């Protein structure tokens, strides 16, 4: 599965411009699903199986997009000014590299800094694509780019890459689709767009799918780094079952159901209470008349930086957990 992860994380798909990633996913899942559709906002929706007695229509969602940049102006000397797509933080940018949709690579620089103790804002930064003039610059206002960073295995189980958020969820979902042989549920796998800009893809997909249960697969913050955020989650201690985040309180019945499934499988899980951020599950939960929703999270360090780090065993166990969950009736008690 590491090869699949590498392929997905190294692809470029900033919010709103996810087509390259979508094409990769489509090729991977086509033989394993009944029907594939791409909706108005670019989300890939794949149907697998039909509802048997005791089954439900379940929407599972992982987002295709990653945070990125978009060009706002090319100056007379060919420097590209930009603004973030999604929650990019300025301190992760300087010295970084980006790749635009047309393949142009660039380096992020900044104006002369008066005070090195203060992180410059995006308005002080620019991207140097090697051009000498506006006319010479291959980037135009409105061109989107993503951060440029290779996948690397730091050790046997610790993997680092940009866009783990949420290509790891995409990889898990693809693997689940391949491994699931039979299910009493009508499974609708959504590879959503524009999650990083307020869950827009999942919002419209959830309306269209009209599910009875919703589950998102995404990364969550890990609390196991030096003087880091206070949080129960740690790498290698299993998938995190979301109890709540800033945008959603998971359906407690679904949380119990997920924990019971993990216990049956004998895999470790952790409970996630996240103070900031949310996932596609929020959009599913609040669509139409409301849907019981939850989320399987993969703990991840340095989220929204060009090097996000997670544990491979958590990934493998997330696949196992989801195959177990989706392969059986989801009877909420």
């Amino acid at each position, binding site marked *: 599965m590491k090869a699949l992860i590498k392929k997905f994380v190294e692809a470029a798909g900033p919010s*709103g411009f996810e087509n390259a990633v979508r094409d990769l996913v489509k090729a991977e899942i086509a033989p394993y699903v009944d029907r594939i559709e791409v*909706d*108005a906002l*670019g989300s890939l929706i794949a149907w697998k199986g039909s509802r048997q007695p005791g089954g439900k229509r379940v929407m599972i969602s992982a987002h295709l997009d990653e945070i990125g940049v978009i060009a*706002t*102006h090319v100056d007379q000397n060919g420097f590209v000014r930009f603004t973030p*797509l999604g929650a990019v933080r300025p301190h992760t940018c300087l010295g970084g590299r980006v790749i635009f949709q047309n393949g142009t690579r660039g380096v992020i620089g900044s104006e002369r800094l008066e005070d090195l103790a203060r992180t410059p804002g995006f308005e002080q930064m620019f991207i140097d694509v090697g051009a000498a003039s506006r006319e010479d610059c291959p980037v135009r206002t*409105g061109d*989107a780019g993503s951060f440029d960073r290779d996948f690397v295995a730091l050790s046997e189980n610790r993997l680092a890459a940009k866009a783990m958020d949420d290509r790891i969820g995409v990889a898990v979902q693809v693997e689940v689709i391949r491994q699931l042989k039979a299910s009493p549920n009508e499974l609708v796998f959504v590879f959503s767009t524009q999650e990083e800009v307020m869950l827009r893809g999942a919002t419209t997909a959830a*309306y269209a799918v009209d599910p009875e249960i919703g589950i998102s697969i995404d990364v969550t913050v890990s609390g196991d780094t030096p003087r880091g955020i206070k949080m129960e989650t740690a790498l290698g201690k299993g998938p995190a079952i979301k109890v709540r985040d800033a945008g959603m309180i998971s359906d407690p019945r679904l949380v119990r159901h997920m924990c019971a499934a993990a216990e049956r499988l004998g895999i470790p899980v952790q409970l996630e209470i996240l103070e900031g951020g949310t996932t596609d599950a929020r959009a599913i939960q609040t669509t139409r008349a409301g849907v019981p929703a939850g989320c399987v999270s993969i703990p991840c360090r340095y989220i929204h930086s060009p090097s996000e780090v997670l544990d491979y065993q958590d990934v493998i166990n997330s696949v196992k957990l989801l195959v177990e969950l989706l392969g059986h009736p989801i009877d909420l008690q």
Partner: protein
Amino acid sequence: MSTHNTHAFELPVIGAEQIALLEKLSNAVGISGDEGEVRKIVLDEIKGLVDQIIVDSLGNVLAICNGEGPDPLRVMLAAHMDEVGFMLVEEDAPGLYAFAVVGGVDLRHLPGKMVQAGKQHLPGVIGAKPIHLQEKDENGRAIPLTSLRIDIGPGGKGKLKPGDRAAFATAFQQVGPSIIGKALDDRLGVATLIEILKRRPRQLTLQVAFTVQEEVGLRGARVAGYALNPDIAIILDSTPSYDLPVWDGEENIRYNTRIGCGPAIYTVDGATINDPRLIKFLAQIAERHGIPFQFRQPGGGGTDAGAIHKTRGGVPSVSISVPGRYQHTAAQITRTDDWTHTLQLVYAALHGLDRSVLAAER
């Protein structure tokens, strides 16, 4: 403007008739949630031009023109009728009203401005302490809303009540190549849609929404988009140009748009990542017809597209704005040519639009 002979049809132009319409619309008062005056003008103008008119529960005007042929493409066009302004909160003293702002208004612009209050358009002024009486350091500070009043004079005692709206009193005028008005955002869009309805393309089902409450959170567009359930949406608005020279002579890199450079096609704003297929289509149409255009700089802000593109299963959407300086103040300035080119772009785009624009996946 009609120097073109490469197209099969004449592009519309802005003449005295269109200016008169815009003047009427800009001078009408339609603060968010109280758009009746503007709606009345719209209803009068479009009567007889469309197959069906609905005024929905929020006050949106939804005008439908059925397309010819089997299964015509349903294209929603939207422009908001409301404008930013004020709502009276309490009569402190005879004719003296405490007020709240409606929509995004910079309080620093308010002192000394003429306003018109209530349905009767009673003239008033937003007062402030004259400079003669100010303390030394008072001059540099913004005056808080709690210290501002709308003053219509003691003769106005009891004539207004809490909840009544007030608007800037700026009268529309044409000055050389420019037009000045208080509510060009977004009466320019409203007027453009009315002009489109006068010469509508026959192959499309047009679902034209004159929306309410855009300035307070795209509320009208949300329900209009749901009701109309379009295949594609094109939103017309007016966006700021902050294209003034930079003080040290450096290149201005944050201008949003530039006046005189044609309609601004949106890429990414705070509420929408516009559909790349529609952006490309509009750019191609503009180039084919020799209509100047610009891309609005990606950034914050938003239009009715923010609500419309997320309705139901999603709607491919794009926004086009007439650029203008000093939006959301008492007076916006726009170049007449930019309006002309916006009308031409929308007109040419609608005449060239069919399902093939959505043939490729987004």
